[in-house]
Structure formats: structure tokens, C-alpha cells
């Protein structure tokens, strides 16, 4: 039986990549992703992981090389953060539209300027529309588990899409947590060798990434979109298998003390655990506050989301990215649009907070919950509110 050991989350993620038995890692180091790829390059150099490590000259090349490797049938992996992810933008679309199954860890960090190496979700939210499956880990164990699951989701013949596993920079990636690394034998049972549906093979030549004229382009896009939407069903199966083998269960949307809650905080990523502590203390004071967190961001799990919020009178959405000039942040935008089809819907208080590594403490969550309750009472018209901005 595997036991829990204290280890840095980045190191644990690299160990998960090793357990997934990847064939090719192509990566360029960038803070705060660095520890992951450094450790992987050590594992390869020490002969502990039999894989090719391609030290490329930029993130554009990192993802391109991973796409190429997956196209020939390798299990391919890369990782990045912030500016590095922005540099991959072009290839993000290429990877999904070419139906390339690969896994990338995104260690979330703010985008410049000003230059900032700390955490928020502006990097991945700028890649929202690239056609990738996008998952968010709230702690180190999830980061490990989601990494293993990501390969199985990506490589399923019904999906064949790239998967991004998101974890917060520093506040999650660099902390030491108790983590259970699964046994290799169990991982091999869970995650068999990748069998590509289509691959570059000199004996059966095909061309990938060719021209697509107006007569075919929209059909290709429809196919990618259906595969992405369909990946949710596959993710559910993968989570079922994972639970059977490893005993930890996963859902696209998770609830915490949501039963009987009138106000629900809506979070993503590692801030969720701080928000849970805030919920605990508000509950102790008799306030009807709960929480949901979105683990599967793309494809958005509409049904499970509606189910999770059905009893709430008010949602306090915590966005850690801004859609400049729009209605607030990407999560708030998604939720408000999703709710538009519902006749009965909760009041949505939308907050943009924690940008560029600004601390989100228990008190800040309590403040947002209190504000949301107040605004809901008067049905205050609001687009969004930025939390913690100094006015003077």
C-alpha cells in the first residue's frame, strides 16, 4: 500500500509524469513551473525514467515538439506558466484541432506587465478558447491524480485532445504537502500503453496538419467541439476507474457544506481550501454559507453545475482573472451566461480578486460572502467588484 509522504507538489507532479511512463518530455523552464521540469530532466538523466527529454529553445517549440511526438504515437508531456503559455498560444489551437492527445501542466501565474511571477489564473484564462480539456487541482494530491487521469482522458479514442492540468503557482506548486504516490503496478493497470488511432508512420503514410479549405473547415471544427463536449463523459468514466483502483473520487463540480446553504462561494484551484476554512468559520457563526468548486472548466459541466447550485439564493463567484472591458472575470461570465436559460436563478455577485499573487485570506472570503449576501438582499445591479484595490 502506498503511504502519504510530505513532498513538494512540483516534485510530486513530476513523479506522476514518471508513473505515467511518458515517452517524450519537451519543455522550457519558466518560474514557477521550473521544479517540475528540472526534476523530470533529472529522472531522465539518472535513467529512472526511460524517456526523451527535449530541452527546446522556447515554449512555442516545447509544445510543437510535444505535438510532433504525440503525432508519431508517443505519450508526450510538457509544462509551462504565464508568458510561456502565452507563447504557446498558436500551437494550442493546432494541437486540439489536429486531435493530438498530450498532457500539459500549467502552473498558473499572472501575465505581464508589470512583470509578476505570482499566482492568478490570467494565463490559462487567456487560453480558454483553444479547444483543450482544462482541469484544476485544489491540492497536491489532486495535482498528482489529475495528471494521471489527464493522460487517460486525452488518449481515449473518443477524445483525442490535449489536456491542461492547472495548479496554482507557488501557493500550490512550491508547498510541501502530504501526498500519496500510487504504485507503478496500479498506475499501469489504470493507464495502459497509448494506442494512437492515427499516427505518422512511414509504412502507412498520412499527412497531419494540412490545408483545410472552406468546404471542410467548419466540419473539422464541429468534430473537435463534439469531441471536447464528449470528453466529459469519458472523464466521468476515467474518474470511476480511478476511484475503483485508488479509492479517491473526483467529480466535475464539487460541493462543500452546500446543503442548506443560501450563499455559495464559487471557486477554482487551490484558493478553494482557504475558502473552505472560511465556510467553516461562517457556518460556526450560524451563517448559511457553502462552497462549490469547478474542477472541470472545459468542457464546462453545465448539468452538474446547475445541480450543485439548485438550492442557493446567491452565488459569490471568485474570479482570479479579468475579462477587460467585459462583465468581470471568465468564471462569472460563464456562469451568468449559463444561468440565462434558467427562469429561476440565484443572484450572482461577481468578484475579481487575488490578481498577481495578492493574498486571498479566510477574511477576504468572509468579506466576499458578506458582500454577496448584502447585494443579493437589495438585488444590487453589479457587473463585478474588484476586491482589495486601494482607493487611497
Amino acid at each position, binding site marked *: 500500500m502506498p503511504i502519504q509522504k510530505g513532498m513538494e507538489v512540483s516534485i510530486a507532479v513530476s513523479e506522476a509524469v514518471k508513473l505515467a511512463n511518458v515517452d517524450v518530455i519537451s519543455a522550457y523552464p519558466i518560474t514557477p513551473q521550473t521544479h517540475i521540469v528540472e526534476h523530470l530532466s533529472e529522472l531522465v538523466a539518472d535513467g529512472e525514467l526511460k524517456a526523451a527529454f527535449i530541452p527546446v529553445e522556447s515554449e512555442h517549440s516545447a509544445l510543437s515538439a510535444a505535438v510532433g511526438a504525440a503525432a508519431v504515437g508517443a505519450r508526450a508531456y510538457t509544462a509551462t506558466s504565464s508568458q510561456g503559455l502565452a507563447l504557446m498560444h498558436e500551437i494550442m489551437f493546432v494541437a486540439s*484541432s*489536429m*486531435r*493530438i492527445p498530450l498532457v500539459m501542466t500549467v502552473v498558473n501565474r499572472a501575465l505581464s506587465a508589470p512583470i509578476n511571477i505570482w499566482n492568478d489564473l490570467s494565463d490559462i484564462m487567456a487560453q480558454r478558447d483553444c479547444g483543450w480539456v482544462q482541469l484544476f487541482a485544489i491540492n497536491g494530491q489532486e495535482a498528482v491524480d489529475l495528471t494521471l487521469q489527464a493522460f487517460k482522458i486525452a488518449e481515449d479514442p473518443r477524445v*483525442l485532445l490535449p489536456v491542461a492540468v492547472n495548479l496554482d503557482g507557488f501557493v500550490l506548486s512550491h508547498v510541501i504537502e502530504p501526498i500519496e504516490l500510487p504504485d507503478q503496478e496500479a498506475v499501469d493497470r489504470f493507464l495502459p500503453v497509448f494506442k494512437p*488511432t*492515427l499516427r505518422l508512420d512511414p509504412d502507412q*503514410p*498520412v*499527412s*497531419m*496538419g*494540412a490545408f*483545410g479549405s472552406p*468546404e*471542410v473547415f*467548419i*466540419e*473539422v471544427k*464541429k*468534430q473537435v467541439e*463534439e469531441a471536447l463536449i464528449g470528453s466529459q463523459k469519458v472523464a466521468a468514466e476515467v474518474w470511476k476507474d480511478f476511484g475503483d483502483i485508488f479509492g479517491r473520487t473526483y467529480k466535475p463540480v464539487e460541493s462543500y457544506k452546500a446543503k442548506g446553504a443560501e450563499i455559495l462561494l464559487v471557486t477554482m484551484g487551490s484558493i478553494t481550501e482557504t475558502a473552505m476554512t472560511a465556510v467553516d468559520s461562517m457556518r460556526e457563526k450560524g451563517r448559511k454559507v457553502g462552497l462549490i468548486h469547478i474542477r472541470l472548466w472545459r468542457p464546462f459541466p453545465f448539468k452538474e453545475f446547475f445541480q450543485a447550485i439548485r438550492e442557493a439564493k446567491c452565488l459569490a463567484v471568485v474570479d482570479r482573472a479579468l475579462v477587460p472591458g467585459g462583465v468581470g472575470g471568465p468564471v462569472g461570465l460563464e456562469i451568468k451566461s449559463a444561468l440565462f436559460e434558467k427562469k429561476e436563478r440565484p443572484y450572482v455577485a461577481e468578484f475579481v480578486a487575488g490578481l498577481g499573487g495578492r493574498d486571498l485570506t479566510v477574511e477576504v472570503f468572509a468579506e466576499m460572502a458578506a458582500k454577496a449576501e448584502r447585494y443579493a438582499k437589495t438585488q444590487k445591479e453589479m457587473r463585478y467588484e474588484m476586491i482589495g484595490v486601494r482607493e487611497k
Partner: protein
Amino acid sequence: MAKIDALHPWKEVPLGCAILEAGNSRQFKTGDWRSKIRPVTDQEKCIKCGMCWIFCPDMAYNQRADGFYDWNSYYCKGCGICARECPKEAIQMIAEEE
């Protein structure tokens, strides 16, 4: 028009829009949008060096048994590269009828 295969419904488009048939670019009629000029070779001047064949970006030249190069209107888009590269100035670009 070049031959276009029956257009697929979205479910039948090959995965990721891959091309499953090797070498089918042969069917692609690049001569479709030829500018209104085309090359003509003067065999009196031609020394069979093959520069036109090498430089043509659309594979519009094929060598015959006698060593001269045949021009193929199916692929030629009238760029004039062959005329420019021919060391003997054996190729002239002439206007085409509408």
C-alpha cells in the same frame, strides 16, 4: 476543376482533418489559377540540363525519353521561375488566350 472527393459530413471527416491517402496532392490542379502567361520551350536552345524541372515549384515538368522536358498545364501556375532559371534562355513566357 480538379477532382474533389465527395464532401464528408462532419462525423466522417478524417480525424483532425488528416489526409489518409498518400500522394493525393497529385490531384490538386494548381494550374487552375494560372496567371495569364505560360512557358514555351525552344528545343533548339535547350541543353536538357533539367533546371526548369528542378526549380518549378509545382512539378509541371516531366522528362521525356529523349531527354527534353514536357510542360504540364494541369500544374503550371505561370510563375515564370523556369524561364528565369533556364541558363540558355530557352523558355519564353507567352500570353495565354482567355
